[in-house]
């Protein structure tokens, strides 16, 4: 995730208005002044509303059509896939496609691996980001600014530039095809440090002084005051890390080997295409299985996700 040029204004990233958080009295105002008669105005407004809903529904259909057809095809028996005209709903649903994908595609192993890999990365990124962001926000030490810029510069280096050497490093550490190899390169994030530092900078100085008077050391202040107050940003980072880790593709592809010890579900999906257990319908059943955890995540944590994805988008 690239960041905008960093402004020093505290909370530039942290206080984004969540989408739709503020109610706006929009539909009411336009055209009030110059509508011809009340009745004509009202019917025109109704027409506009209908047009807007039609437009929204059309957009939703375009976005969802590929997903819908995937679900339909994942339920059809194989011969039905080539049927012309295509089935637009699963007229004879064949649920065992899902069990075939689950068993034959080793999806339970891949999903378990993905859960472990993602958990390590999310927890690791949260811990390293909280610690570093706390230091950058609350502690004074020489070269603090330079070091912070160094952290930010990692956002400018795309992963593929480091790929070649990282593969060598992981191999020489003996971490090829292990969870360590899969996760350790991602245990720190410049973006996360930036996001949390901005949130920490919003905490009033008085609070810190009051805590110091109460005999709070840095550790207690961090765990009892700073992190709880920055919870929205911490949650946003967690969701963001989760999404990034779960959907990783290039690194797991090069760093995992032929047995399925640590392969993640994304690589599992790629392999599902090639193996003989799979016909298209089974592959698609596997796809649905792989994406379901994330859809649930989206619906539950929409606010946090939006907050993390738009950090830097608005000033």
């Amino acid at each position, binding site marked *: 995730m690239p960041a905008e040029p960093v402004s020093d204004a505290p909370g530039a990233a942290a206080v984004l208005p969540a989408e739709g958080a503020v109610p706006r009295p929009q539909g009411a105002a336009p055209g009030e002044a110059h509508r011809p008669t009340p009745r004509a105005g009202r019917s025109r407004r109704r027409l506009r509303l209908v047009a807007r809903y039609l437009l929204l529904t059309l957009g939703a259909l375009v976005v969802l059509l590929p997903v819908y057809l995937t679900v339909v095809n994942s339920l059809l028996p194989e011969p039905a896939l080539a049927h012309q005209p295509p089935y637009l709903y699963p007229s004879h649903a064949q649920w065992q496609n899902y069990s075939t994908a689950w068993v034959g595609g080793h999806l339970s192993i891949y999903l378990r691996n993905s859960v472990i890999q993602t958990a390590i990365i999310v927890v690791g990124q949260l811990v390293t980001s909280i610690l570093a962001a706390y230091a950058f926000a609350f502690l004074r030490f020489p070269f603090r600014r330079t070091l912070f810029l160094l952290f930010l510069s*990692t956002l400018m280096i795309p992963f593929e530039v480091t790929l070649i050497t990282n593969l060598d490093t992981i191999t020489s550490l003996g971490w090829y095809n292990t969870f360590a190899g899969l996760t350790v390169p991602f245990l720190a994030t410049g973006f996360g440090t930036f996001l949390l530092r901005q949130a920490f900078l919003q905490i009033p100085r008085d609070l810190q002084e009051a805590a110091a008077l109460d005999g709070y050391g840095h550790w207690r202040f961090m765990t009892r005051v700073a992190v709880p107050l920055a919870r929205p940003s911490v949650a946003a980072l967690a969701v963001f890390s989760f999404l990034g880790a779960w959907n990783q593709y290039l690194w797991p592809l090069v760093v995992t080997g032929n047995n399925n010890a640590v392969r993640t579900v994304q690589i599992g999906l790629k392999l599902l295409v090639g193996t003989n257990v799979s016909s298209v319908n089974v592959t698609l059943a596997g796809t649905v299985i792989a994406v379901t955890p994330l859809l649930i995540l989206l619906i539950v944590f929409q606010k946090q996700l939006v907050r993390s994805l738009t950090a830097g988008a608005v000033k």
Partner: protein
Amino acid sequence: MASVVSRRSQRLREAVLGYLLILPALAVFGVFVFYPFARNFKLALYQTPPFPGLPSHYVGLHQVGQVLTSSNFLQSLLTTIFFVVLVVPAGLLLGLFLAVAAHRHLRGIAVYRIIFSSTVVSSVAVAALVFGTLMNPVVGFLPWLGINPHPPILENTTWALPAIAVMAVWQFLGLSFIIMSAGLSSLPEEVLEAARVDGASSWTTFWRVTVPLLSPTLFFGVVVATIYAFQTFGQIDILIGSQNAAYEHVNVLIYNVYTTLQINGDPGRAAVLSIALFLLTLTLTLVQMRFLERRVSYAS
């Protein structure tokens, strides 16, 4: 005296604590970002021997020149630029369009918003499989609509790249929608209101008021979309691959780095290619900052 000493030692302790707290992240960055970044430049100067096991030898800038003038690189560069042109404007405009449409407090709008942002959770593998089926010459939807070129879309030298671009636009749409929506909801409502009171039509208001006010968001969107397009890899790997007839026509730089490294086993060339990709990304981002920021009008 004692207080001076204790203050100094307190300072020292604060500094030590500061370094300790940033150490874990710094260690990871050092080993897995900065070191490989620096070493990449060195690798670019060494030629990989034709047979494995032999030591690679120093050739200096010779290899850099060789790679950068090779037809493989030039075609890869053109493909990448073409891909960016296909993906970035379409992805951003569609996202903006949906965000504007959904920027009203209507009944059920939350459902539409979730749908529009939903593609953000789809991984490359998921997007690839979903669209791979849609574009399958036997299964499917497109033959029914009469779209069934020979050779099939994903082996077709003309259509393979646009097909990947459609997939990328779809996958990027969720993020585009989220970014644009956040931008819209941060606009100062009074200005838009004033435009309406002045009798401006919604069309005029949109182009003359909303778009200029939104320009920081649009600018951010262009940078994010360009980087996203540069990094599109998984769809190509899953749906096309290096054995495909259309391979040469979809061999964008990042895929070229991967095939050069993993399939041809040539880290030297791969390093040159990855540096080229990095410099391209960096330059474009800087140029965009320069040119776009000049036109951007910041609301606050």
